[in-house]
């Protein structure tokens, strides 16, 4: 019976979806770095694999199953808990040619709400797929661990065990990003390819993603109208400093517990996230000016941004 080869729009769509899985599936690997079922990863460059940080539960004794069923050992090049990404290097030679070729280039522009997408995984030897749509797209956002994700991509799609670290693929077989269940509760999110490339580059170069650090803990407070007026502030809120790490950049700069931080380099801060956003890796070693309310008066405190100590796991 060759009814399906005669085509029709449903068969054509089906063929396109299966072709997309076949094309990108060659770059999808299984990663054995935890108990129970393996997780997924994507060959990002020859010999380099991107995975979800939360699925890499050990730093040594990591093996990878490639699309042809062969197994290679891999070493952890680095991990960034803030974006839930990790990068592995395959043992010399493994996957360098043919099998596990790089995934197709990232789709340009933002995915559209309603667009058909496939999530691919390899939680074992066989590639697996699920189909859904992009349910929401937003701008840059910050994860609860302070990582910056270039674009918010939420999926209406079933993400099964072992899918984290696998790619989100459009109907043309282009990789939109890496899926993970590690950045939000009870929903699948996609880390866009642009963010993956940026983080993977830093992990390959340094083994970690460097972030700026002041060494303070803060809490939002509302400023009394009188104080707001006397200090000439536009915003009615600031951040009260509740901890200053000994010998941290803030400590050396003279910041005190009880200071109310109202601006950083002239930018008003009202949420701890505003401070995190101003402390990208590019600020390390540079001076910033903190405007604080101290004892009812405005003070300027100069601080040299340090590098955030490596994450304790």
């Amino acid at each position, binding site marked *: *019976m060759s009814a399906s080869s005669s085509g029709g729009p449903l068969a054509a769509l089906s063929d396109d979806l299966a072709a997309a899985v076949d094309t990108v599936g060659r770059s999808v690997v299984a990663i054995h770095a935890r108990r129970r079922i393996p997780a997924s990863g994507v060959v990002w460059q020859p010999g380099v694999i991107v995975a979800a940080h939360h699925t890499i539960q050990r730093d040594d004794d990591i093996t990878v199953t490639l699309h042809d069923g062969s197994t290679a050992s891999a070493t952890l090049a680095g991990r960034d808990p803030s974006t839930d990404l990790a990068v592995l290097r395959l043992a010399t030679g493994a996957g360098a040619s043919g099998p596990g070729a790089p995934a197709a280039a990232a789709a340009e522009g933002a995915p559209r709400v309603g667009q058909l997408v496939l999530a691919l995984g390899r939680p*074992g030897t066989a590639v697996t797929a*699920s189909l859904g749509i992009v349910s929401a797209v937003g701008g840059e956002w910050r994860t609860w661990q302070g990582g910056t994700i270039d674009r918010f991509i939420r999926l209406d799609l079933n993400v*099964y065990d072992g899918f984290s670290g696998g790619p989100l693929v459009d109907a043309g077989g282009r990789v939109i990003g890496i899926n993970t269940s590690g950045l939000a509760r009870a929903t699948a999110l996609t880390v866009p390819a642009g963010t993956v490339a940026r983080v993977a580059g830093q992990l390959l170069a340094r083994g970690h993603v460097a972030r700026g650090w002041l060494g303070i803990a803060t809490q939002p407070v509302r400023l009394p109208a009188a104080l707001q007026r006397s200090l000439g502030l536009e915003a009615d809120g600031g951040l009260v400093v509740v901890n200053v790490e000994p010998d941290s950049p803030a400590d050396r700069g003279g910041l005190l517990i009880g200071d109310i931080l109202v601006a950083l380099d002239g930018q008003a801060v009202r949420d701890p996230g505003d401070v995190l956003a101003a402390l990208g890796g590019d600020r390390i070693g540079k001076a910033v000016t903190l405007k604080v309310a101290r004892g009812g008066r405005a003070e300027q405190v100069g601080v040299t941004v340090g590098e955030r100590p490596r994450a304790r796991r």
Partner: protein
Amino acid sequence: MPAADSLLRGALRAESVLGVETALGEVAERLARVTVQVRFGGRSAGAGVVWLRTGVVVTNAHVATGPGAEVVLPDGRVLSARVSARDPGRDLALLAVPAEDLEPALRSDARGLRAGELVVALGHPLGVAYATALGVVHRVPTGARGPAGWLHADIRLAPGNSGGPLADTAGRVVGINAMIVGGLGIAVPSHVVEAFVRAVADARHGGARAA
């Protein structure tokens, strides 16, 4: 006001969606002609697929638990059926229906599927007769035992889909829906069903029994 060319593109897109929907409707209709309801004492137990013109209907062993059942044909006829064979390990059972004029299902070997290919399920989920679901092949059956011996589909099924068809975009049955595991639809691959039907027929005609 959108430009004329973007309006045109919108119209073309709508047409392609219409084509997919129409084709999906045709697949559902084709499957409905070969899908039955299996009942016990007037209560729906699941679905079944007409496999042979001579009154052989395939369902799940967990649907056909007794010696007999009622089969409601797509044309509304209600016939009493005998459970002629069961394989609980494969979750398959054959129902012998007193009819010689049934339209049998078109079939295709599940081992020829590709992950990502569209599949359609028909059944009576939660008692809703002849409901259609669309999904994709999650994992192609590659082996004889364990998870690799089943056809996994990313598709929304419910109790009542059991024993019903999972088909490709041409309406050819590639599996018999059997269970839901972790949200995935798990089906008995068509080649396993073919082998089962053949083995039962051979045993009957030759008088031989598989050891």
